[in-house]
């Protein structure tokens, strides 16, 4: 990883999807000092540009505007909220296989130009629209059903869920690129407007605009571009059924568990070696379930673990020091690459007042839909 670049996440009525992506790509190019002409392939993660802003054919549309060479492949990848995690995985494969020396990965989403009910409808398309979607299951509803079952099986409480929101808002309030830089209290979260019981507005991530980008090169050439490169120690992408009612146990994400196992094995590391993590907190319950599936804590104990402060910046395993999707924002297609950029900032020691004390190894976990795609990436510095 030889360069990273992000835009702020937020609601930007004056910005279009192309200008957001071009800004993030420009920042990544500047960070790495790679000339745009050296880039040999471009992978773009985007969930629903065609639905949100009516624009298809996004990869060359953005790639050419960013000054990439017309002679290279520009490809858009869609895997719901894991679109840019998936784009990263495919770019990494190409570089690791020796096909390209410099590959660009970006993610972008422009969501705030649509009214909330329309956004809810477009997002529901990441589920099974012939089954759960037809019945009226929104994404908050699917994760609410996961939360209910987790509460039933493991005794997780409403306060445990709220603790995740409080912690992530506290972190995001210190992140200059976060969408909602606002501290919230436990009482505010519990009294929040109901969205899908037991989840309130404060359990849900934000509808945001934004983009993130990064550049990859083979390890033996990384020093040609920067002295501050970060190594990809392990990465895996996995899949599962799209409809929630086809999973045996909805209190665990099989795709997360498997992606974690594969990434840990590739890195030759275990969960105790990870010093910070960005987890996919599209809803508060999702962070709790992922922290269990990645073995940071035993199955069922994720709620009390979060409520005890173990996942805070100064905790046992700091989770979502960026503020997470909850406070930093969740421009769906940008989220996977955005998480990786946030881990890289911590590993380089560039996270400012959010900087964690030990930062040699970090993990990013990007989830698509209600668990049908997962990408886990483990990064490290020497």
């Amino acid at each position, binding site marked *: 990883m030889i360069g990273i670049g992000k835009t702020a996440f937020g609601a930007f009525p004056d910005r279009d999807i192309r200008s957001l992506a071009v800004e993030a790509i420009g920042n990544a190019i500047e960070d790495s000092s790679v000339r745009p002409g050296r880039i040999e392939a471009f992978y773009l993660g985007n969930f629903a540009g065609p639905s949100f802003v009516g624009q298809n054919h996004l990869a060359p549309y953005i790639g050419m505007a960013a000054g990439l060479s017309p002679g290279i492949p520009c490809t858009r990848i869609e895997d719901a909220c894991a679109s840019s995690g998936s784009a990263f995985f495919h770019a990494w494969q190409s570089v690791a296989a020796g096909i390209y020396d410099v590959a660009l990965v970006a993610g972008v989403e422009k969501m705030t130009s649509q009214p909330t009910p329309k956004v809810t409808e477009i997002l529901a398309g990441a589920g099974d629209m012939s089954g759960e979607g037809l019945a009226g299951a929104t994404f908050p509803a699917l994760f609410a059903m996961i939360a209910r079952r987790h509460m*039933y099986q493991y005794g997780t409480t409403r306060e445990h869920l709220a603790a995740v929101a409080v912690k992530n808002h506290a972190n995001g309030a210190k992140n200059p690129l976060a969408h909602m830089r606002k501290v919230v209290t436990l009482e505010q979260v519990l009294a929040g407007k109901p969205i*899908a019981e037991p989840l309130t507005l404060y359990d849900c991530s934000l509808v945001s605009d934004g983009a993130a980008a990064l550049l990859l090169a083979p390890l033996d050439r990384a020093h040609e571009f920067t002295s501050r490169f970060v190594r990809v120690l392990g990465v895996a992408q996995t899949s599962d059924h799209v409809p929630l009612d086809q999973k045996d146990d909805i209190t665990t994400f099989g795709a997360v568990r498997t992606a974690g196992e594969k990434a840990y094995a590739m890195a030759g590391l275990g969960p105790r070696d990870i010093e910070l993590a960005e987890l996919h907190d599209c809803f508060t319950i999702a962070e709790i379930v992922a922290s269990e599936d990645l073995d940071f804590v035993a199955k069922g104990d994720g709620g009390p673990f979060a409520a005890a402060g173990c996942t805070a910046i100064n905790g046992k395993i700091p989770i979502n020091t960026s503020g997470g999707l909850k406070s930093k924002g969740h421009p769906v297609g940008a989220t996977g690459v955005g998480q990786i950029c946030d881990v890289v900032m911590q590993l380089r020691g560039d996270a400012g007042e959010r900087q964690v004390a030990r930062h040699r190894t970090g993990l990013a976990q990007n989830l698509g839909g209600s668990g049908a795609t997962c990408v886990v990436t483990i990064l490290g510095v020497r």
Partner: protein
Amino acid sequence: MSGLRDPGDGAVYTETVVWAPPQAYAADAPYQLAIVDLDAGNRLTGRIIDSRVRIGDRVRFFEYRNGVAYFRKS
């Protein structure tokens, strides 16, 4: 509705009440959704009518409306 089989009865595996619906179901909210463990062995996502249900409650299939199974507490 023709083509859809009666799923039979079952028990609530999980449930939620939706307060923020997608555009198409704005008039229905709040409504209760459940994943039902059918006695036939599989699971089905459907709507609950009449009184609210909790995990473990027995439910009886009522009817299909626009391809969606509706259940009620038995």
